[in-house]
């Protein structure tokens, strides 16, 4: 079996076995959060690492997915499955419309435009109180059901979110290793050269932006059905920056970076919640912002390609040394 596929199946096996071995709702809830963020970062990795575009507005799509499913399922009684799909369609449409003018921009301008989009959507969540409930939040979001099976406890939701994450990772892997993936990587490499070989750059940028928005939207929808209560603070601009930190920490050049970056972020967040009050008794949530800000700077300086690239480098060296060792042994033989 191809190494790439083998890794995915081993990962899937680990996901399947974990709740059977570890019976802790706390750990499952952490893994569920990692699942939500992995799904968002999977799309964002495709956008940033493969197409070379930045987005500081993905919390908006996460929020659109959450509020759409909340509104349609709780207020209008839609099936959560249908309302999740509706959220994804709305997010895709908005991403398409926003993407047309936005992807004419590059670098810092693109980052600021997407950040601005995130702030606008956050303000809408706050101000459209008749739909979103404003800062008081949206209560009573129903759980997801599959026939008579309700995803109401952590173990069941764990399997749901990780099934979706695995499917999205497989989909992304297939894209990456196809003609479309090569085209995306060429855009990241050189837009002038991509133009020269006839690649429709704008179309690909839009397609990958829409795909990343759909991933974020589905993650947001599932999050809403998991926590059953949402408010705008869960989708502010800071979350978009955290998504960026997750992608950079994990490594934008590999889709596994999405899972690794999300895991590091959630685990460090939990660790900080435990450790910081022991050191600073009056410390608030701002410590998290400072810590992850420092982490981002450190990563950009010392590991700009993220943990997956660092891992590849280490295993690459190890493979080289093991390949060379028989020769070395031979050379030193009697």
């Amino acid at each position, binding site marked *: 079996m191809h190494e790439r596929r083998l890794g995915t199946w081993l990962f899937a096996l680990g996901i399947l076995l974990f709740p059977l071995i570890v019976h802790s709702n706390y750990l499952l809830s952490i893994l569920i959060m990692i699942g939500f963020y992995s799904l968002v970062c999977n799309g964002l990795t495709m956008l940033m690492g493969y197409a070379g575009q930045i987005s500081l507005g993905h919390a908006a799509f996460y929020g659109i997915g959450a509020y759409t499913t909340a509104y349609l399922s709780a207020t209008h009684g839609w099936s959560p499955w249908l309302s999740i799909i509706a959220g994804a369609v709305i997010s895709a449409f908005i991403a398409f419309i926003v993407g047309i003018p936005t992807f004419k921009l590059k670098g810092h301008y693109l980052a600021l435009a997407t950040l601005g989009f995130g702030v606008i959507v956050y303000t809408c969540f706050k101000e459209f109180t008749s739909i979103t409930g404003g800062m008081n939040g949206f209560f009573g979001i129903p759980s997801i059901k599959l026939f008579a099976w309700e995803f109401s406890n952590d173990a069941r939701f764990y399997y749901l979110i990780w099934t979706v994450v695995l499917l999205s990772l497989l989909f992304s892997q297939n894209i990456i290793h196809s*003609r479309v993936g*090569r*085209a995306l*990587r*060429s855009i*990241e*490499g*050189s837009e*002038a*050269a991509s*133009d*020269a*070989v*006839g*690649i*429709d750059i704008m179309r690909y940028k839009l397609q990958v932006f829409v795909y990343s928005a759909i991933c974020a939207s589905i993650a947001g929808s599932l999050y809403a059905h998991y926590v059953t209560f949402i408010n705008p603070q869960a989708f502010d601009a800071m979350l978009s920056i955290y998504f960026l930190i997750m992608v950079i920490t994990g490594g934008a050049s590999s889709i596994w970076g999405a899972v690794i970056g999300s895991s590091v972020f959630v685990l460090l967040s939990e660790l900080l919640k435990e450790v910081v009050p022991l050191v600073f008794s009056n410390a608030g949530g701002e410590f998290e912002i400072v810590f992850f800000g420092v982490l981002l700077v450190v990563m950009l300086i010392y590991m700009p390609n993220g943990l997956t690239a660092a891992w590849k480098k280490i295993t690459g060296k190890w493979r080289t040394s093991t390949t060379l060792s028989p020769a070395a042994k031979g050379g030193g033989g009697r």
Partner: protein
Amino acid sequence: MLAVNNLHVYHGYLHVVKGISFQIQKGELLAIVGANGAGKSTLLGTLAGVYKAAEGTIELEGEDITPATMQTLVKKGICLVPERRQIFDSLSVKDNLLLGAYHRYRRDKKEIPRDVEQVLELFPRLKQMLDRPGGLLSGGEQQMLAIARGLMAKPKLIMLDEPSLGLAPLIVKDIMTILRKMCDELETTIILVEQNVKAALKVADRACVLSHGQISISGTAQELMNNETVQAAYFGKKQSNLVRESIS
């Protein structure tokens, strides 16, 4: 095959290409030479769809392609090898080549592996480094890869913008030999924009000297080689001040 009639191109208010007309036949190598800022790259960019013509027409095999986009022109068989190679650094040599065949991938999926082999016969140096990232190749190898990537599109017309830029003379000689071979053996039509006039004229069938956005001298490569003005401006041979001024 390609006919350019009274082409005018502006960059903002700057009139860069001023009424250029020329024709090129199938399998011919046309060199366009001239000083910096003469409008060579703008002319090539306009033929490739990067810039829009303000006036004039470009016809490919009788069809007006003046308003066509870059993507359309690649599909129609016009391929640009841009200045400074512009290869995809992080992608392997093989992926770079496959991207050259991007627009024909669905149509000719089965033919593409064979085309890679054919192209590699022209550039045997690339054969041994198919899995190496493009960014790790030397300047000359990158230029070969850029041309090979262009050939993967199976173009009717391939246009090269300063392929000798920053390369050692021996590598330039190799590349020029390959270009000549492409014309003679594959019947590829080539427009070569060069500042290395001597190298370009050695392999070209015909040539034009561009000066201030206009063609100042044109003829066969041999005619230009023997032209006193060209010799004075580009080969460093002694010439009267009057002629020097006329070319600058």
